[in-house]
């Protein structure tokens, strides 16, 4: 039986035999984002998991502030901060098994770091010494994708290939609210649903695509409502509630791993900083909106819950902060070292074997550099 044959088919016949392929009702998202923290569902949550999420969130926040600081010191060319979105970033990484794959966008270095990649390697693209600083296969993390939504079909293809090979590997792909408008978003979700590929699409709806608010991006009831049009379930979750995001993503991953096909998850969150350090968000949004979201901060939400339930005391908070500080100090120290650059890298990896033309060009650059060197003596 081929992958295609495993499911029923929407192949219309003339009436009265006609019927839709699937019942749309279970594919539609709930009217309100799913929440755990501060609700009754929190009682069911695993305390160890919540504490783990807390440690990661505190570190994640510190990572964001450190990276932003590095742009001011000229140690990073640019940084798109995920401050305010740490719950999504961390939950995305933690919902996956080791053998699974993560497909991040340029804003998702925190998810990459949370998955275990050395932050210096994760930041190479944004520092400017090389496009990708880590070995994707070593960590099962695809390169950070700059062209929006283009990473989504990659995730589908990889998950499909794994399934064909009989591996129970799931791919989780991250995209922003703006990215959902791209054709690649549509094509990826459609392929995933038709192939029943084990993929989870996580849309971080942070309210903006640079300066463009969601209302100019979509007229949909929610972005999660797009799922039904592909025949996959759509889920809406409070993106600042780490426990909720983790639960919804884990469920989607389990569902995919069990052969249930893809899920579209919309996490409603907010970008607390400007688009990048180069952006000026005063041009397009007011402080009051940002302030409103401060009361719904992902780190505080979790900390409040843990404290209220006696799962975290001041020592625990301090321990998490100390670990985060140590992490930031190490990152700072290593980012303050100049990266080692090798101009030969320009030609070495364009093809498996450099073409004759590239060999000529490399020789030309070598000669120029030698002349420069000589000139310097």
């Amino acid at each position, binding site marked *: 039986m081929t992958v295609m044959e495993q499911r029923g088919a929407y192949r219309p016949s003339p009436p009265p035999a006609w019927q839709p392929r699937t019942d749309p009702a279970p594919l539609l998202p709930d009217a309100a984002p799913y929440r755990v923290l501060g609700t009754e569902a929190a009682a069911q949550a695993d305390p160890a998991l919540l504490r783990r999420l807390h440690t990661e969130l505190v570190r994640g926040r510190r990572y964001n502030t450190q990276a932003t600081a590095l742009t001011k010191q000229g140690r990073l060319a640019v940084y798109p901060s995920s401050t305010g979105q740490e719950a999504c970033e961390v939950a995305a990484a933690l919902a996956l098994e080791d053998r699974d794959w993560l497909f991040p966008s340029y804003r998702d270095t925190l998810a990459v770091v949370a998955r275990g990649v050395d932050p210096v390697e994760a930041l190479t693209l944004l520092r*400017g010494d090389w496009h990708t600083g880590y070995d994707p296969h070593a960590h099962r993390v695809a390169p950070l994708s*700059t062209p929006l939504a283009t990473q989504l079909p990659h995730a589908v293809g990889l998950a499909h290939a794994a399934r064909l090979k009989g591996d129970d590997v799931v791919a989780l792909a991250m995209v922003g609210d703006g990215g959902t408008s*791209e*054709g690649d978003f549509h094509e990826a979700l459609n392929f995933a649903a038709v192939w029943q590929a084990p993929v989870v699409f996580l849309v971080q709806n942070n309210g903006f*695509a*640079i300066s*463009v608010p969601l209302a100019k991006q979509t007229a949909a009831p929610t972005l999660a409502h797009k799922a039904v049009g592909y025949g996959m379930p759509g889920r809406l979750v409070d993106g600042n509630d780490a426990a909720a995001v983790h639960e919804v993503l884990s469920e989607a991953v389990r569902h995919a791993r069990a052969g249930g096909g893809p899920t579209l998850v919309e996490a409603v969150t907010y970008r607390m900083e400007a688009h990048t350090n180069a952006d000026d968000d005063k*041009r397009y949004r007011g402080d009051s909106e940002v302030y409103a979201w401060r009361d719904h901060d992902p780190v505080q939400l979790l900390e409040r819950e843990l404290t209220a339930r006696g799962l975290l005391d001041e020592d625990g908070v301090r321990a998490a902060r100390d670990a985060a500080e140590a992490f930031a100090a190490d990152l700072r120290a290593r980012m303050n070292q100049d990266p080692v650059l090798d101009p030969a890298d320009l030609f070495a990896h364009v093809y498996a074997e450099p073409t004759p033309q590239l060999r000529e*060009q490399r020789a030309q650059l070598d000669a120029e550099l030698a002349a420069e060197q000589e000139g310097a003596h």
Partner: protein
Amino acid sequence: MTTVAVKPATMAQALTRALRDAMAADPAVHVLGEDVGTLGGVFRVTDGLAKEFGDDRCTDTPLAEAGILGTAVGMAMYGLRPVVEMQFDAFAYPAFEQLISHVSRMRNRTRGAMPLPITVRVPYGGGIGGVEHHSDSSEAYYMATPGLHVVTPATVADAYGLLRAAIASDDPVVFLEPKRLYWSKDAWNPEEPGTVEPIGRAVVRRSGRSATLITYGPSVPVCLEAAEAARAEGWDLEVVDLRSLVPFDDETVCSSVRRTGRAVVVHESGGFGGPGGEIAARVTERCFHHLEAPVLRVAGFDIPYPPPMLERHHLPGVDRILDAVARLQWEAES
């Protein structure tokens, strides 16, 4: 042409002024793209337009380049003159099918009944420390697509004049804006912005007798610098700024090369399959017996655009240009 220098303005400011003047002159002119409205564009080229002309004249679109260009086609069909912004060079690629299969062909397809006066603004090229996909020189793709005009300014005055001309053109124009010249300043009087340059005319930026540097956009200032430096070596270089890649000004270019007998084409774009091949080939076809040496090319390497920290090795600089000039067989070996 006869602009009175008052105080220096940047190329970005001249472009903004061109858009504003075009919108004021013709209510059919509409600007659309990602972040062009409230924000004024990531390079601030559309700054203030939404405020002055309203969101319906300068519109923040959803984030989808094929959609932006595709809807612009429909707007042009109904008599508007859309000016579309692609946020960066590499982010114009999703719109290529619309550009190649429709924008460039609609007039021809309909035997002239349905022209598409669309201007596609594309910030292009490197040298600004941009991360991957933010520094491509994509002009070869546009040049290879019949039905498009391809224009690129190198000076503040040309930025104004050529953009006005592009918007006024009844044909689609790909308007390539050299990113690293956005903040370059020139003596240019925004109060008398000057006449509209005709599309399709190159200009001699510096006269010289020894050899011709043929270039455009971001490489024009580099060539002018190289020409200055070359004086020390005894070479008097002429610098031709093409301004328009399509149509190509064979006349200006060839009359220069026939005079100097030697030429180097300079651009950032990769050499192989890049604009320089076309330029060198057509100059050679037309000026063969005037050439003392083959037309040489100084171009980016045939590699994906490098990360910021390595880009200086990739970009054609003064030394590389002078090296090429030195190889122009000054004592012909025949």
